[in-house]
């Protein structure tokens, strides 16, 4: 579609842009104390954006702005998921004590900018767009990670984030430049076609470029060995931002990886055919499989040794990225389907776990295991809800986490005997993760002295907790709506060779 026609399908992003501008201007009229009210503007803008996405004709599958962005149900699915995560994080940010004393107008404006960047990430089909989208998300998250200007830990988090982030996006850019030179174009479809006709002598250059590009993508989803920033940034950032970083940019990163690999390395049609299909000689499914294995193993093994719950959850989020990566080497629609379901389930349980950490900290507690001891007796409702999230993160039925894992393992096993080993490693890892998740439960209920007085959280906190915990349980028993939504959304704009 040409530029003018594209605008009619670009309403969600346009509304978001206006939201960002309105938020920044509205913040000028608020005093420092009232600055938090800008959250309302962002929330309103997000609701309008969501409505705009829903009102779009979901049967249209096309490209926008001269093949710069794809417009398909797949992108709309991820956009909805990102909006959902952002709305939760805005509500969570209202309840955190860490932001006290800071002007929060920019905070919410930056969140909206990140949403915009992620919208571009999930629909980019041009290398320039890929780079710009990743940078928009990265640069605003650098600032958000260091939002607590006077807090040394937040300072350190933002420094590490900006150095690792700029470094890995630089490496990715170098990889993109090699791909551009080999293929002669920045469009995914043209690259795919060029790959088809590439001489064997260029294979090495292309493999090298792919590894460079993986550095950029892997950094966004915090896959080992591009994960070094994750623990420090997750621990030092405001916890609401940690929760956000562990869910939304990760989902957008997976959307981008799947679109990129399916279009550039696959034949573009692998979504209709559940078998392994790739025409290039590159060993990229093996590459992703190895990446998945080291990601989840390292994440789980290091998570066991942590004493800080935020840091433990950081390593656990690395492990979860590994589980999701496991489904990508299958190159099948079933694998992508599994990743999408997993991301929905992961959103609720991970945001929930981080929200409990925020609430405990705002109650005068800290972030270490010691601060959680006896929590189950002191604040029973929080103890029970945290137990649900921990069970779900481990992947034990009847919780959402189990359903997510079930689909991933099913996709891996169904793709044939050559990936059985991957499923076995994944199973062993799930068992390892049981140790540190259950340690939280053990500390909450079996350690520390039980206190006489029972604290009941305020209504707003209960509401957020329930909004996250109830889906975690319900989707473990009745996940048909999610499955239907995902299977309807599994339509990508592709070009089949």
């Amino acid at each position, binding site marked *: 579609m040409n530029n003018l026609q594209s605008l009619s399908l670009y309403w969600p992003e346009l509304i978001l842009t206006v939201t960002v501008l309105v938020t920044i201007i509205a913040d000028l009229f608020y005093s420092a104390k009232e600055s938090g009210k800008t959250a309302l503007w962002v929330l309103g803008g997000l609701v309008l954006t969501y409505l705009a996405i829903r009102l779009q004709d979901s049967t249209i599958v096309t490209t926008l702005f001269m093949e710069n962005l794809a417009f398909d149900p797949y992108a709309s699915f991820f956009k909805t998921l990102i909006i959902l995560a952002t709305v939760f994080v805005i509500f969570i940010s209202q309840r955190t004590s860490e932001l006290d004393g800071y002007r929060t107008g920019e905070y919410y404006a930056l969140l909206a900018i990140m949403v915009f960047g992620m919208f571009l990430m999930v629909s980019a089909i041009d290398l320039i767009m890929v780079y710009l989208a990743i940078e928009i998300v990265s640069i605003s998250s650098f600032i958000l990670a260091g939002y607590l200007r006077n807090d040394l*830990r937040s300072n350190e988090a933002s420094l590490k984030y900006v150095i690792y982030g700029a470094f890995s996006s630089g490496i990715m850019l170098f990889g993109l430049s090699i791909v551009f030179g080999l293929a002669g174009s920045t469009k995914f479809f043209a690259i795919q076609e060029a790959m088809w006709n590439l001489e064997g002598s260029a294979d090495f250059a292309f493999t090298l470029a792919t590894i460079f590009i993986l550095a950029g993508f892997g950094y966004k989803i915090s896959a080992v060995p591009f994960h070094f920033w994750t623990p420090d940034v997750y621990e030092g950032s405001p916890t609401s931002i940690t929760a956000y970083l562990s869910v939304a940019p990760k989902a957008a990163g997976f959307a981008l990886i799947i679109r990129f690999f399916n279009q550039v390395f696959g034949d573009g049609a692998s979504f209709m055919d559940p078998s392994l299909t790739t025409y290039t000689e590159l060993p990229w499914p093996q590459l992703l499989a190895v990446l998945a294995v080291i990601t989840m193993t390292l994440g789980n093994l290091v998570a066991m040794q942590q004493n800080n719950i935020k840091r433990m959850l950081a390593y656990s989020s690395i492990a979860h990225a590994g589980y999701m990566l496991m489904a990508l080497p299958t190159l099948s629609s079933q694998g992508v389907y599994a990743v999408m379901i997993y991301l929905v389930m992961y959103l609720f349980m991970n945001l929930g776990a981080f929200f409990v950490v925020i609430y405990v900290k705002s109650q005068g507690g800290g972030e270490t295991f010691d601060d959680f001891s006896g929590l189950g007796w002191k604040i029973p409702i929080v103890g029970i809800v945290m137990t649900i999230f921990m069970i779900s993160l481990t992947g034990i039925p009847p919780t959402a986490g189990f359903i997510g894992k079930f689909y991933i393992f099913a996709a891996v096993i169904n793709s044939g005997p050559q990936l059985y080993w991957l499923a076995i490693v994944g199973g062993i890892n799930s068992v390892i993760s049981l140790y540190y998740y259950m340690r939280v439960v053990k500390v909450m209920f079996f350690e520390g002295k039980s206190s006489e007085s029972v604290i009941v959280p305020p209504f707003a906190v209960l509401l957020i907790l329930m909004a996250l915990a109830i889906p975690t349980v319900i989707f473990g028993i009745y996940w048909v709506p999610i499955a239907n939504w995902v299977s309807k959304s599994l339509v990508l704009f592709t070009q089949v060779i």
Partner: protein
Amino acid sequence: MDSLNTYLFIAAILFSLGLFGVITRRNGVAVLMGIELILNAANLNFLAFAKYGGMNIVGHIFALFVIIMAAAEAAVALAIIINIYNNFRTINIDDVRELQQ
């Protein structure tokens, strides 16, 4: 030696120097300079391919966007480093150790 290879060779050297700088330097600003070298190595690649590969405008546009993004990134990174200096009185990234290692 034909011209495209010369450019690619120089870009590869720049990239390696940038990589070396990021890994070995401990001064925050010097690390950022290493990152700039990497970005400019990629830029050189884009421009060389644009000139010799016959894909004129796209390579130039890509390079322009990279320059813009590099400037934005440098602005944010320098602001963070200034903030680090205010709080820690150092810009040596090894001395910034508040979090568990």
